[in-house]
């Protein structure tokens, strides 16, 4: 049965504190999922069950909500994340070639993580950095006016060594 609780650890205590601060209100679901993902890196079944119980929500609503929003991941992400913005401004400035370059280098498609767990590649639907298109977000930091060469060089650092 997947109903077993997640092991009680420090992260769970932090999550519970956030839930208490939100008075266990059902409308806090998205905020709580954000916190859970920040703490655990992704949303696995035990965490989702814990959230459902704490907010007194039907599990299918928690799962339905978690899978509706693109920023929630139910699978672990890689050690490093590369988000290529595919907003319109980036698109006309050749962002697709960036995606293709990364995909070719590490042999994964957007939404996937390399087999060694080093790199996750995702695409974003506009991060609002249109003035410096094309933009990518590498491990949470936005970079503008990025070329395919610069990007693959950085990814090679990630995949080999350091």
């Amino acid at each position, binding site marked *: 049965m997947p109903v077993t609780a997640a092991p009680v650890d420090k992260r769970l205590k932090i999550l519970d504190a956030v839930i208490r601060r939100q008075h266990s*209100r*059902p*409308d*806090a*679901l*998205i*905020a709580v*999922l*954000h916190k859970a993902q920040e703490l655990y890196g992704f949303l696995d079944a035990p965490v989702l069950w814990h959230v459902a119980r704490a907010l007194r929500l039907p599990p299918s*609503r928690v799962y*339905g*909500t978690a899978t*509706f*929003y*693109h*920023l*929630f991941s139910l699978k672990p992400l890689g050690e490093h994340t590369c988000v290529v913005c*595919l*907003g*319109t*401004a*980036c*698109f*006309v*400035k050749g962002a697709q070639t960036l995606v293709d370059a990364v995909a070719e280098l590490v042999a994964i498609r957007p939404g996937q993580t390399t087999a060694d767990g080093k790199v996750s590649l995702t695409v*974003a*639907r*506009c*991060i*609002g*950095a*249109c*003035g*410096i*298109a094309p*933009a990518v977000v590498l491990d949470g*930091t*936005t*970079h*503008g*006016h990025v070329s395919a060469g610069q990007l693959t060089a950085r990814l090679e650092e990630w995949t080999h060594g350091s």
Partner: protein
Amino acid sequence: MDHDDLQRIAEGERAAAKSAEIRCCTSSGCRASGSKEVLSRLKAAVEANGLGDRVAAVGVGCPGLCSAGPVVQTHPDGAAFGKVTADHADGIVSALSGGSAGAVRIDPHQPFFTKQLRIVRATAGQIDPERIEAYIAAGGYEGLYRVLQRRPDEIVADVTASGLRGRGGAGYPTGLKWATVAKMPPGQKYVICNGDEGDPGAFMDRSVMEDAPHQVLEGMAIAAYAIGANQGYIYVRAEYPLAIERLQTAITQARKAGLLGRGVFQTPFEFEVEIRIGAGAFVCGEETALIASVQGLRGTPRPRPPYPAESGLWDRPTLINNVETFATIPAILRNGPAWFAAIGTATSKGTKIFSLTGKVKNAGLVEVPMGTTLREVVEQLGGGTADGKAVKAVQTGGPSGGCVPASLLDTPIDYESLASIGSIMGSGGMIVMDDADRMPEVARFFMEFCADESCGKCVPCRVGTVQLHGLLTKLVEKRATRHDLDTLIELCHLVRDTSLCGLGQSAPNPVLSTLRYFAGEYEALLQPEEFARPTRRSAVPLTVIS
């Protein structure tokens, strides 16, 4: 906090101002190019040169010219520098006393700056968005104070008289929306600020939230007073962490100063604001989907009526306006509706911010009076294309909008004119395209976006966008025939006319508008039919102009 306190803060701020300021943009765009390091080096350089008593290096909001970032400006001499690196810090400081800056100078008198009329972005690039005192010194919260001395219905009347229309895309008259919520029986009502700016290629709202968070709060508070609400929510997409951070800072500061919370300006008016963070769903920009998301649910839209004004958040009357709309409010109440209504055209009043991007020389944010032509924005403010090639089209309105061909660039920017040429004002994305951009591919790009962002609730949008994407792919890959093109147009009609919400209803717009103006590009991709086709028997017309 009373009015005297407000003035005291403003005076204190002005008295503490140094004789010169070095203003470094710390908004998201320039931050991505290293502006935080530039700022700290500027501060160090000021100290190192012993100028601390008369020069201040401050982080400010976005001055607009994002393509030249990081941008640093000096005040009061009005010099501006672009592509500044930390190593330029000493030079810029020495330039204040006549030395050579070393950094690339930006002409502050070029049309990009002089042709703008900045009302919403009045303080952007000039004050520190993280300090409430700076906003107050610039006249902030004065509008709220004046509003609280008057009756709520007078405020609604002012907003109506100003002619302001929603800046989120549809252009619904703001005063009318306020009046509807205000007229609902007293009881729990809500104000929601829609900061889920999802149109790819648009970042006006992000910058307003980052550069002028207090202005947004002030606008919301004025609205709350006018309609009788005591609780507000700002729904911000998670992709905008700096906006969230600055709004949170602003809320804390405003509460501490007594400008939010109970007894605002020592009146019975009470207003609390909470931030709700999205999680990556374009459809949540649609107001009923946004309400569902604020309630912690899947962001699926529901049919209207009832409109949120009657039954919105938790089935209570709810006013939803977008960020730019709320940020326009304080100036209207400060300067009066007649002042605002004098700007713009007969049906579209005031100014509008656009994020000008794509193949344009000066990419960034521009705020211009309604009625300005697309040509002025693209060629004068934008400086044409970066490499001097001809402009082919301008995309406005994002995935719900259309591509305006170069031949129609003299169209004035107002809600009706843009609609008449098959595009929309939208939230303000303006993407310049040149010959390298193939219109069927652009249409496919937007359709992929819509299929990916469809919530999946109604059939025409959920499946129709996928089929449309398939047809556009077939076309782009030169496998389609005339028959497929007819099917494409027919499906566009279906999705437009039968989808449940605005996302689906407008999803075909990029296809229809490019078919209208760039039909040749589609025709050129068609393959001959191998066999004659039976006569088409569909009742759906094959027109591309609605």
